[in-house]
C-alpha cells in the first residue's frame, strides 16, 4: 500500500484503482464480521445518491411531462435540453433520452463497465456495475426485470435494452403516472425514481 500525505498532513492512497479495491475490501470485511450490515451501508449510500443526483433527472422528466416543447427538445438533443435546466457536467457530455410508451419499455445498461449519466442520475448504484446485471439484462431482460426488480411487463410490450458507453449515455423518460393530471411540476418530480430513469422500475403513484 502506497501512502502519501496531503497539505494538511492527511494520509491518502496514491493509486485510484487500489483505493477503490481497499474500500471494497473494508466494506466486505466489515459486513462479514458483523460490524455493520450491508443494508445500512446501502441505505446511507442511497440517501446521498438521491440527494446529489437523481432528483436532477427527475426535474428533467417532470418538465418533459408538463412542457411538450421541452419534451421535443429533450428527445432530439438531451444534452442541450438538460443544460437548459442547469443539468450538465462531467460524464454528461453526450446524453440521450429514451421515451417509454405503452408499447415500448426502455432499459439501460453498460455492458463494458459502468457508464452512466452522472449529472442526471448521480452516482451509479452498485448493482448497475455488477457483472450479473450487465449480462442478464441483455440476455433475458424481461425475466431480469421481473425477478430482480419486480417489474413485470405485459407480453405485448417490447423491451429495448440500450448499452451506454463513454461516448453516449442513456436515460429513460418514463411514462407519466396515471391520475397525475393537474399536479405541479415539482410534485411530479417527486414521483420519478432513479430506477424508472434506468428502466428497471416504475414511477411512483401520486
Amino acid at each position, binding site marked *: 500500500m502506497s501512502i502519501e500525505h496531503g497539505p494538511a498532513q492527511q494520509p491518502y492512497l496514491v493509486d485510484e484503482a487500489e483505493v477503490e479495491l481497499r474500500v471494497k475490501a*473494508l466494506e466486505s470485511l466489515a459486513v462479514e464480521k458483523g460490524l455493520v450490515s450491508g443494508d445500512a451501508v446501502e441505505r446511507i449510500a442511497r440517501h446521498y445518491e438521491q440527494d446529489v443526483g437523481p432528483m436532477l433527472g427527475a426535474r428533467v422528466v417532470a418538465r418533459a411531462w408538463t412542457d411538450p416543447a421541452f419534451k421535443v427538445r429533450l428527445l432530439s438533443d438531451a444534452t442541450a435540453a438538460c443544460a437548459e435546466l442547469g443539468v450538465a457536467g462531467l460524464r454528461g457530455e453526450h446524453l440521450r433520452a429514451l421515451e417509454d410508451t405503452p408499447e415500448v419499455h426502455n432499459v439501460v445498461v453498460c455492458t463494458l463497465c459502468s457508464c452512466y449519466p452522472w449529472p442526471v442520475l448521480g452516482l451509479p448504484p452498485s448493482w448497475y456495475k455488477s457483472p450479473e446485471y450487465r449480462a442478464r439484462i441483455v440476455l433475458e431482460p424481461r425475466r431480469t426485470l421481473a425477478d430482480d426488480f419486480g417489474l413485470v411487463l405485459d407480453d405485448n410490450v417490447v423491451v429495448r435494452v440500450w448499452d451506454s458507453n463513454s461516448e453516449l449515455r442513456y436515460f429513460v423518460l418514463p411514462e407519466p403516472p396515471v391520475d397525475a393530471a393537474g399536479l405541479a411540476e415539482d410534485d411530479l418530480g417527486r414521483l420519478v425514481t432513479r430506477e424508472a430513469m434506468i428502466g428497471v422500475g416504475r414511477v411512483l403513484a401520486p
Partner: protein
Amino acid sequence: VSPVTPAPGRFETPWHLRAYALAAALEEAGSLPTDALPPGASSAAWPVLLERLLVDGGHLSPTEIDAEVAHHAARVSRDVHP
C-alpha cells in the same frame, strides 16, 4: 443519517460515497466512534483513516485486509473486457 452531512456534489467518485457510507454505517452501529471521519478530513484520506480505525480498534488485521484486497483484485481482473 450521519453526524457529518456532505454538501451536494461532495462525492467525486463512487468510492468516496462507499467509504463515506461505510464510515457512517459503522458509526451508526457503534463499531466506530462518532466523527470517525472528521469534518475537516480530506475525502482522499477517508480510506486510510477508516482502515487505521478498524485495525487500531482490533476489528480487522492488516493481513486480512490485504487478503481481501487481493480477492477483489482477482475478481476485477477476471471481469476486465479486452
